[in-house]
C-alpha cells in the first residue's frame, strides 16, 4: 500500500514578531497553524543583543557596573543592580560588612520594583485578552507605585540607588511615614487586582486551563520565578540566597498547583501582598542615620556568584575578579532565559487567539534575554 505523505506546508504560517502589538519587546515567534490551532512553533531572539557583558569587561570599572547593568532591563532595573552589586561585594570580600540599613533600603527598592512589575504584567495580560479597562485601571494603580518610588529614590523605574558598598540615598523619617501611608493604598489596589483575577468571568474563562505546566515539567525545564511557583515548585531565590533580611522577616513562598495562566497571575497577585509586608518590615527594622555607604578600597579579586529574585524569577550573576578594576568576566543569566525553552511545548495545540495571553503569562522580558 502506498503511503500518502501529508504536506506539512499546508499549515497557515502566522508570524508573531519581531514587532507585534502584544509583545512589549522584540522576539520572533512563527506559528504553523491549522484552523487557528498551533501545530508547530519556532522562535528567534536575535534582535536586541547589546553586548553589555562585553562592555562590562572592557569599558566600565566595577564601581560603574551597577548603573550599567541597571540599563539591561527597563522594568526590573534594580534587581540587576542588586545582583551585580552583591556579586561584586562578595568578590571584593565586604559582603559581611554591609550595614543593615543598606540591606533594608535595597529590599524596599526591590520589593517596590516587584510590585510595579507585577502590576504591569497583569495589566498587560488583561490588555492582550482584550480587556482594556482592567489594563487602564491596573496601570493607574501602578502609576501610584511609581510615584511612591519617585518620592523615595528620585526616579520612577530606574532607581539607580544601589552602588558598590551600599546605597547612595537614604530614606528619611518623613518619607518613611508617607510611604507607610501609601502602602495602605497600594494594598487596596492589590485587593482590586485579586478580585479581578478571581471573579471576572470573561477573564477567568480566557485564562483558566490555558498552557498548563505540570510540576514535573516545571522541574524538567528548570522554570524559575512565579511561573515555577504556579506549578507548585517551592523555589525563591530570596530565601535560597539571602543577601537581605528575607529569612529574618519570614518571607513566605507562595505556590499554587494548577500551573495554568490564571495560576501564574494569581501567584503574582499574592506575591504583591507579601512584598508590601516585606516593605513594612524593612521600614520598621532599621532607622535612618546609620552609615549607608562603605568605603571600597579593594578591587574584585575572587570569583563570586549571586542569585537574586527578580520579579520574573531567578537572576544569576557570576563575576570573575582578577584584582584589576575591570572584572575578567561577567555572566548574566536572566530569568526569561530559563522560561523560554518551555514555550514551544506549552503552545502546541493552543488556539492562536490564546497565544498572546499565554505568552504574556510567562512574563517574558526579551531585552534582558538579549543583553
Amino acid at each position, binding site marked *: 500500500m502506498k503511503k500518502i505523505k501529508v504536506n506539512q506546508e499546508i499549515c497557515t504560517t502566522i508570524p508573531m514578531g519581531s514587532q507585534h502589538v*502584544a509583545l512589549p519587546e522584540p522576539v520572533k515567534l512563527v506559528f504553523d497553524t491549522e484552523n487557528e490551532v498551533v501545530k508547530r512553533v519556532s522562535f528567534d531572539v536575535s534582535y536586541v543583543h547589546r553586548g553589555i557583558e562585553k562592555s562590562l569587561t572592557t569599558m566600565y570599572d566595577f564601581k560603574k557596573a551597577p548603573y550599567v547593568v541597571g540599563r539591561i532591563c527597563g522594568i526590573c532595573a534594580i534587581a540587576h543592580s542588586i545582583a551585580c552589586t552583591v556579586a561584586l561585594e562578595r568578590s571584593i570580600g565586604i559582603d559581611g560588612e554591609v550595614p543593615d540599613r543598606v540591606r533594608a533600603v535595597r529590599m524596599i527598592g526591590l520589593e517596590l520594583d516587584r510590585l510595579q512589575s507585577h502590576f504591569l504584567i497583569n495589566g498587560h495580560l488583561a490588555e492582550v485578552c482584550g480587556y*482594556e479597562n482592567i489594563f*487602564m485601571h491596573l496601570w493607574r494603580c501602578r502609576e501610584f507605585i511609581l510615584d511612591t518610588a519617585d518620592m523615595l529614590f528620585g526616579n520612577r523605574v530606574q532607581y539607580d540607588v544601589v552602588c558598590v558598598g551600599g546605597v547612595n540615598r537614604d530614606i528619611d523619617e518623613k518619607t518613611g511615614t508617607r510611604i507607610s501611608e501609601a502602602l495602605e493604598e497600594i494594598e487596596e489596589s492589590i485587593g482590586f487586582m485579586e478580585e479581578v483575577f478571581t471573579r471576572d468571568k470573561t477573564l477567568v474563562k480566557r485564562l483558566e486551563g490555558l498552557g498548563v505546566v505540570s510540576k514535573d515539567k516545571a522541574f524538567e525545564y528548570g522554570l524559575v520565578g512565579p511561573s515555577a511557583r504556579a506549578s507548585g515548585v517551592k523555589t525563591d531565590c530570596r530565601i535560597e540566597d539571602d543577601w537581605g533580611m528575607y529569612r529574618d522577616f519570614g518571607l513566605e513562598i507562595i505556590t499554587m498547583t494548577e500551573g495554568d495562566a490564571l495560576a501564574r497571575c494569581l501567584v503574582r497577585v499574592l506575591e504583591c501582598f507579601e512584598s508590601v509586608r516585606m516593605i513594612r518590615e524593612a521600614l520598621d527594622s532599621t532607622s535612618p542615620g546609620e552609615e549607608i555607604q562603605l568605603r571600597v578600597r579593594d578591587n574584585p579579586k575572587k570569583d563570586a556568584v549571586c542569585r537574586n529574585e527578580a520579579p520574573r524569577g531567578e537572576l544569576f550573576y557570576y563575576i570573575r575578579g582578577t584584582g584589576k578594576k575591570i572584572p575578567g568576566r561577567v555572566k548574566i543569566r536572566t530569568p526569561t532565559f530559563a522560561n523560554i525553552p518551555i514555550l514551544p511545548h506549552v503552545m502546541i495545540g493552543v488556539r492562536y487567539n490564546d497565544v498572546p495571553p499565554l505568552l504574556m503569562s510567562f512574563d517574558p522580558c526579551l531585552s534582558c534575554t538579549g543583553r
Partner: protein
Amino acid sequence: MKTLLILVFSPVIGGLIEGAFRKVNARMQTRVGPPIVQPFYDLLKLLQKRPILINNYHVLMAYAHFVLMATALATFLLGGDLLLVIFFHGMSLAFLAMGAYSLRSAYSHVGATRELFHILAVEPPLLLIAVNIYMNTGTFLLSDVFETQRLVKIMPFSFLALIASLPGMLRRSPFDVSEAHQEIIGGPEIEYSGPFYAPIYLAKWLEKVLVAAFIGIFFLGSPLIVVAIATSFILVLALDNSTARLSYWDMVKITWVVALPLVGANIFLNAQGVL
C-alpha cells in the same frame, strides 16, 4: 435635495458619533480622551499620507466596501427596502474580507476569516428582526415602516436582540474578534494605509450611523429616540469595558443563543397576538 443632504450630513454625524465613542470610552477608563472632532483630524491626516499600493484589487475592495456601506445607509435613509439594506451591509463586509484575501499577509487572512464569521453571527438576527418588522407592518419598504410609531411597544424582544448583536456589529469587546489588534493587529484592515485606509475609516462612521438608524426604527415618533440610541451605545461601550475578548466561535454561539430566541419569541408572541 434630500438625497444630497443625507449624503453630506451622514458622514459628519458618523464622525461625531465616532468621536463621542472615543470620548465616552476614555471617560469610562478614567482618561481624558481625545477631543470629539478627533476622527476628522485622523481622516485628514490619512488623506495627506503617502499612498502605498499593494495591488489594485485590494484597493478596489476598500472602495467597494465604502460604496456599498454608503448605499446601504442611503437606501435606509431614503426609505428603500429593509432587506436590501441588510444585504448591502453584509455584502459590504464581504468585500472587506475579499480584499483581505487578495494578499499574502497571514494576519489579513485570519482577519478575513473572522470577518466572515462576523457576518455569520450578525446577519441572521438582523434578517429575523426584518421579518418581524414585516409581520407587524406588512411591508419591507422603509418609507412605509417609518410611518409606524413606536415599534418597540410591540416588538420589545426584537429590540433586545438588536442590542445583543450590537457588540458584534460595532466590533466591540467581547466580540471584536475580527480586528483584535493584540492578536491579528486590525485583521482585514492591516495592509491598508494612508489614503487607501480612508474609505474604510469613513465606512466605519457610516456603519455607526446605520446602526443608530436601525435602533431609531424602534422609537419613531417618540421624543426619546435620541436618548434611546445614546443609551444603547453607552451600554455597548460599558460592556466593551467590562469584558475580555472571546473567540469567534464563542461570538457566533453567544449571539445566536441570545439573539435568535429573543426574536423568535417576539415573532411567536406577535403571531399569537399577545403583543
